[in-house]
């Protein structure tokens, strides 16, 4: 017993895809998935109007600060374990430790950012979406709409009117 139906419109152009997104939004359909072979700025702007800002940067900053803290902790703690004065410098000398802290900031910041792609982008995706079409990695755009079954016709006509090459359920 499904309460939602999936309708897919396949487009060949950026402007027709954009038109379809705007028309669907205007008619109150908000559950859209847009497939693009490459990131398209115009489409991203349209999506960003309703989507909250991506939380990737949160991952980055937490990762980076963890790196900084780890760098200083590792160096200071180890130096206190081996309290050796070398080159007339105190065991805990901050300037050289900044280098370690810097490298670990970048390392953990970068790894956390990569992790964000997986976590936020919900990857790896084990089962392909029912609305995905292999052409979307070549030169076609897709707008998939999840809607109540009684609205399917309205969605289909909106997609066709916007200029979809192909509309299917």
């Amino acid at each position: 017993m499904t309460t939602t139906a999936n309708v897919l419109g396949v487009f060949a152009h950026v402007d027709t895809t954009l038109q379809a997104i705007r028309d669907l939004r205007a008619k109150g359909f908000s559950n859209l998935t847009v497939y693009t072979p490459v990131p398209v700025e115009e489409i991203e702007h349209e999506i960003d109007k309703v989507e909250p800002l991506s939380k990737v940067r949160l991952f980055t900053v937490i990762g980076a600060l963890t790196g900084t803290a780890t760098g200083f902790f590792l160096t200071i703690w180890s130096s206190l374990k081996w309290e050796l004065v070398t080159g007339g410098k105190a065991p805990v000398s901050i300037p050289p430790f900044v280098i370690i802290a810097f490298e670990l900031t970048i390392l953990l910041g970068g790894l956390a950012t990569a992790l964000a792609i997986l976590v936020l982008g919900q990857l790896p995706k084990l089962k392909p979406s029912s609305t995905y079409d292999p052409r979307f990695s070549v030169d076609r755009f897709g707008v998939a709409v999840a809607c109540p079954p009684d609205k399917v016709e309205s969605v289909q006509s909106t997609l066709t009117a916007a200029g979809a090459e192909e509309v299917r359920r």
Partner: protein
Amino acid sequence: MSAPPAQSSTAQATWADVNRDVIRTIGMPGEKYFAWLCLVALVLAAGAAAWAWQIWVGIGAAGKRTPQMWAMYITTFVFWIGIGHAGTLISAVLYLFRAKWRTSIYRGAEAMTVFAVMTAGLFPLIHAGRMWFAYWLMPYPNQRYLWPNFKSPLVWDVFAISTYLTISVVFFIVGLVPDIAALRDNATGYKRKIYAVLSLGWEGSDHQWRHYRRAYGLLAALATPLVLSVHSVVSFDFAMALVPGWHSTLFPPFFVDGAIFSGFAMVLVLILPMRALFNWYPYITDRHLDAMAKLILVTSLVLTYFYVCEVFTAWYSGDHFERASVFAKASQQYAWAYWLMYFCNSVVPLVLFVKKLRTHAVVLYVISIFVLIGMWFERFNIIVPGLAHDFYPYTWGTYYPTVTDSAIIVGSFAWFFLLFLGFIRVMPSLSIVEVKEVLPHPLKHATPTGGHH
């Protein structure tokens, strides 16, 4: 590798063309490819045998005698780290500057970076002799009573290089994911399954792109200071020491510039044959060659400035040992290496002032080879003649290469090319997504405004 028969611009290629042109490079290669592969594998085998010999008889097999304890291994280590600079420079710095021309070369350059750093990473192990104790290099508090000295530039180096390798690999993989999805959609059978796993089920939905793009930008922002820092830290290995000719604040920018210089030369050495072999003239156009040639020219001029500074500083410092070191380099047993370096790095690239030659594939190739030779000798000139003539005459000494260390050095080139040859046959060596991004986007009504980045 001669000039292409017809120069078509990228505007003529469509998105479907890009998929087709990149995907057709993957699959069953021809006999020529296997011939190259065999040759490279043979050279690598010779290098591996030499390494085995060195482990068997000891590090003396590498011709290391006091004061020449760094010799060719550290020279080649620094050389390979330098080569690895172009990739992340292209994928991070040029990305932030929105340099569109990067898109056609960045995949090859990133692969080059990862493989070059993997090659460089072998040298501390080879150099350390008893490589089964290599983990002793990892600086952490331990029960072996080894002192992790965080004030040592060698320890900084461990962190800098490992971070650089990790972040370069992350960049490389993140860039590959959407492209592997394109391969998956084109493949059948078991290949499809393999690509499906490697693509992580990427579909290019708005949800995925949104996070992906933001993450890519942040990675680029993180990697930019890393690119500049990694070779600075490598230069600290020398600059922090008191050896005449090493102890200079000039070293970090000098090393970073040289790294970019040699990195771009290696990009050209790899990209030019690929362009001819895969018929990628519509994607790697004269504009791309021109941009890379200009970068090589600029970095060459900056390097020449540093060379002049180095000599001037030695003279102006009034320091007897600094002056003697430069004099010895330019006139004693290693003078040939010194002047060869000047010729390759400062004189040969001047040819690129001629506009026509900046887009001439053969000329660019030859210049790149000169640059690579020159940059290897630059590191040689810092390390070997530097150590050959420091403070006291009783520590002076000449280094003679042996068959063992020479075979290992040549073998490292084979290892690098073997990795690269493998890569270009299983993965897209031209970025499908990024090349499409800069092509004009398909529009039905509006006037095409061209791609953005």
